């Protein structure tokens, strides 16, 4: 079985990980991913960018075409039996046996794990149900579950044992707002216990709220990875001036080196130049000297969403 985890090695570490599906689709292309232990790692990317494919390779469900992946320090997919009991996973939504109750679904998945102790099975199943707020519906047939309830049951299956790593592919998909909050709270709680959480999502708010680190994928390639703070910082803040005299304001701001000016009603926004940006107090004074009436003045911090769009492009269409 597993050796005690060394703290220094990454929870997930891939080198040149590549997957070309039968039929030729290059879904993941030379991925070098490093997920530090103890982090809550957000895995971002537009539809079809290769997130689920990466997770399938990490879980040993599909074999990489090239490159290698280590999970909890051991090579995948060869160490599947030793590694996966320490990993909980939710991949591409939950999958359940409709003719079994929620509880019996969990019993089934627990029986599949050869390291799971049958003597504690009942208690562990009960706790997992409790943790995701399904205790009351545990006896109901899974086919009668709503989408959110199925999602919760899928999460419960990932929590049947204490895990070192949780891999969650869009965990809040289909949940109501309370459910999303609960899941976020749960992720924080697990992270506080020392579990590394790797979570893919489209919800940038969510990533910004719970993740310490993030990586961005596009068209199968890794665009960037790092701490969430660093990623958001990479996007320069925008200057926002509220004024009833937009044309005048634009002229003055342009003279002071502000670029990319946009007028929207009585809001003028622009980017501060990257090299020696003007002092904001001086800028404000310059506006007032030019008789521009200033209602509001300030900068807007770059959000992860700006970073995401800047990195992956505005386009809505999925890349073939």
């Amino acid at each position, binding site marked *: *079985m597993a050796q005690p985890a060394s703290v220094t090695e990454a929870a997930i570490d891939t080198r040149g990980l590549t997957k070309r*599906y*039968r039929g030729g689709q290059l879904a993941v292309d030379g991925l070098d991913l490093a997920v530090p232990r103890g982090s809550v790692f957000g895995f971002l990317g537009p539809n079809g960018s290769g997130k689920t494919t990466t997770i*399938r390779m990490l*879980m*040993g*469900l*599909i*074999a990489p075409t090239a490159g290698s992946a280590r999970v909890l320090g051991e090579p995948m997919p060869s160490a*599947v*039996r030793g590694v*996966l*009991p320490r*990993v909980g*996973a939710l*991949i*591409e*939504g939950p*999958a*359940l*046996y*409709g*003719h*079994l109750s929620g509880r019996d679904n969990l*019993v*089934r*998945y*627990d*029986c*599949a*794990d*050869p*390291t*799971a*102790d*049958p*003597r*504690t099975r009942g*208690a*562990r199943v009960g*706790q997992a149900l*409790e*943790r*995701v*707020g399904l205790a009351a519906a545990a006896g109901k047939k899974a086919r009668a579950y709503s989408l959110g309830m199925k999602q919760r049951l*899928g999460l419960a*299956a990932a929590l049947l*044992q*204490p895990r070192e790593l949780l891999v969650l592919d869009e965990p809040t998909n289909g949940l109501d707002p309370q459910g999303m909050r*609960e899941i976020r709270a*749960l992720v924080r*709680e697990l992270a506080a*216990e020392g579990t590394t959480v790797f979570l893919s999502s489209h919800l940038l708010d969510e990533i910004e709220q719970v993740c310490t680190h993030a990586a961005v994928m596009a068209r199968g390639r890794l665009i960037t990875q790092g701490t969430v703070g660093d990623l958001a910082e990479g996007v320069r803040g925008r200057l926002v001036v509220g004024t009833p005299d937009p044309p005048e304001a634009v002229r003055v701001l342009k003279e002071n080196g502000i670029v990319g000016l946009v007028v929207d009603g009585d809001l003028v926004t622009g980017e501060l130049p990257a090299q020696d940006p003007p002092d904001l107090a001086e800028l404000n004074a310059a506006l007032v000297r030019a008789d521009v009436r200033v209602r509001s003045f300030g900068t807007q911090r770059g959000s992860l969403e700006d970073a995401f769009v800047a990195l992956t492009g505005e386009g809505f269409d999925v890349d073939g």
Partner: protein
Amino acid sequence: MSTAEERVAVTAAPVAARPRGLRTLGLFRNELVVTFRRWRTLALFAILAGIPVVVGIAVKIETSDGGTAGGEGGGPAFISQITNNGLFLVFTSLAVTLPFFLPMAIGVVAGDAIAGEANAGTLRYLLVAPAGRSRLLLAKGWAALVFCASGVLVVTVSALATGSAMFPLGDVTLLSGTSISFSEGLLRALAVAAVVTVSLIGVAAIGLFVSTLTNSGIAAMATTVGLLITVQILDTIPQLHAIQPYLFPHYWLSFADLVRDPVYWDQIMRNFGLQGLYLAVFGSAAWARFTTRDITA
């Protein structure tokens, strides 16, 4: 939501101490529970249980005017004996269900074994649990064999119940003309049930292999049942004489040789050998395929 302390307290028990075999048994037992709780499985059993009843009623109606039932229908010379001895309904029912109903039921269950899980997406969760691909396939294979035995048992018990309710019971006159006691006859009936179960191993192995090829449970079931019918037809075409000894249904009706005195073992042994061969070939093929395949469903 419960606290972390509670959770750890229950889960901290040592888990590595259990012997390997027992842990595989856990998955196998669960596999049985899941299979036998399916509505579909129960429906198949209901059909199998109904056939002896239908045969019994048909014989009763046909002989109610004093005539004897013709021997041309199901199986070698059993049916005409039913009116004398209800135990012969067991032999007749097995002879009637073995060519199609029993293997069809096995084809449905074995064909769905892996493909059905892939179709529902539950396969990926079993594999990340991690069930282990060989271990899962083994559990599925054992469950299919248990289903074979259960199906045969359902037919046997239903036939025995129907036979004893509708017809007299007593000493059994064998196909060879000699007579044995009823209890010995009952033993022979059980032996026949066992041989019929073994006869179904080939279909089960083929079904399991087909099941590893596709992500659609329905497609796997249809392919297996289609294959079954095709092979049955090939087995009746005289020009294919040369290959027929290698077709899995070829020796199926050899179980009748158990109802002779002395028992003719020759064909029965060939049947066992053939079923073993199918199990080895298709079992390995299923294993080779399933352990190397990309699971994307």
